[in-house]
């Protein structure tokens, strides 16, 4: 539904929250194997997907991410035994909540990528990047960021300019 918004200048910002044991190692492998994937992905490393608080995902969108990728060890492979099992439930719930709030879930991708799956990492990162690129910028949170209550609205052009410069 967003595909028609062709914008060649638009480079989506993708934030990837990954666990250090599997996906980070997988992404590393992709790098050492010289596999190509879009440079849009900014990787943030966590000890475990269990440490990835849904608030971080929200925060990424608020701070200007156009898409968020969350990735960790396959079920059963968690370095801490069950971190990803717990994370899975939390992400399922959070996804439902975001959807209910009205966030297009096409901007949020979860995946299991093991340390050996450099190829899968490339595939997941590329797919999300291209999907988000086609959707265009995540405007919802960014617009909220600049909105004021009527009583606190600012009227000077200088300030408005300074204000709009804030990401």
């Amino acid at each position, binding site marked *: 539904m967003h595909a028609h918004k062709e914008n060649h200048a638009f480079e989506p910002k993708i934030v990837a929250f990954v666990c250090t044991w599997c996906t980070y190692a997988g992404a590393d492998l992709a790098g050492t194997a010289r596999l190509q994937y879009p440079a849009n992905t900014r990787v943030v490393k966590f000890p475990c997907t269990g440490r990835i608080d*849904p*608030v971080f995902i*929200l*925060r990424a969108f*608020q701070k200007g991410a156009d898409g968020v990728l969350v990735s960790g060890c396959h*079920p*059963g492979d968690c370095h801490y035994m*069950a971190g990803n*099992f*717990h994370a*899975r*439930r*939390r*992400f*399922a*719930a*959070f*996804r*439902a*909540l*975001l*959807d*209910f*709030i*009205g*966030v*297009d*879930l096409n901007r949020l*991708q*979860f*995946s*299991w990528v093991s340390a050996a799956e450099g190829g899968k990492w490339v595939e*997941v990162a590329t797919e999300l990047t291209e999907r988000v690129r086609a959707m265009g910028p995540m405007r*919802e*949170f960014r617009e*909220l*960021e600049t*909105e*004021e*209550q009527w009583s*606190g609205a600012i009227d000077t052009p200088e300030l408005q300019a300074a204000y709009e410069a804030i990401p």
Partner: protein
Amino acid sequence: MTNTAQTIDPALYAAVTDAIRAEAKKVLEAGAAAAVVGWQAGRRQGTAMPAIITDPAKVAELIFSPACVNNLALYLSKAKKEIRARGRIAIVVKGCDLKALVGLMGENQLKREDLHVIGVVCAGVQRAGAAKDIPLSEETIAGKCRECTVHTPEGADVTVGTLPDLPHFTPVESEELSRLEAMTPAQRWSFWKEHFARCIRCYACRQVCPFCYCEQCLCDRNRPQAVETTPRPAGNMAWHIVRAMHLAGRCAGCAECERVCPMDIPLNLLNRKMAKELKELYGHEAGFEVKEKGPLAQYREDDDQSFIK
């Protein structure tokens, strides 16, 4: 349970009032409880407020009426330490309130043996802002009560009242939930955006929630800051998302957050949605049985992961 009249017989409330007073007198006199947490009438006609009664001579102040909206489980949460410090507490609960109490027990916030639970059969309470008319009607009954499934609390030390025949009410909350679910994400976004823009960040929703007992709310923290504290649309949106997420799988559905919102934000819609999802996904439902772990504090190896690549 059929009732052709569209109102609720007020006799129930009078009977329950008498029974609460008798029970309160009994436990206070016997020393079985240091205080009774119940409701008392407010100054204004047709209003009520929480009451903490320690003197058996004052039990006549206790009442039960459609104005007894407060979920008193709040006063047993960690946020209200002073009250529990008095000793064993007798607490008056409606069915929905008892679910919250049970939830707190599941989270090891309360021990059943430290409480004397006086369950009251409840036919419904007033909607926020409704006229204080008696009897309760389609016009004045709270949304949550229209589709209540817990009129009669179970597992209380004593349960008082007999449920009268109830009229059929339109389940406005479920209908509203379905209406939202049928919308496109963009429509839902503008729905919530408009509601949240009104939020003034008074945190009444948090402060009355029995489950918001954290000594340090994530949203009050500033190192790092997860949610902006100013009442602007951006921070408001984040706050309500975080609130709903932190209550997912814990909320007992008392809808106090929505009742107290001075800006009429339909917060219980979020809670209902999360409850519905967690029931569908993991079969969890808030009830009268103490569960050791909530749905987001446990897992099954075969949980759905169709959304994960």
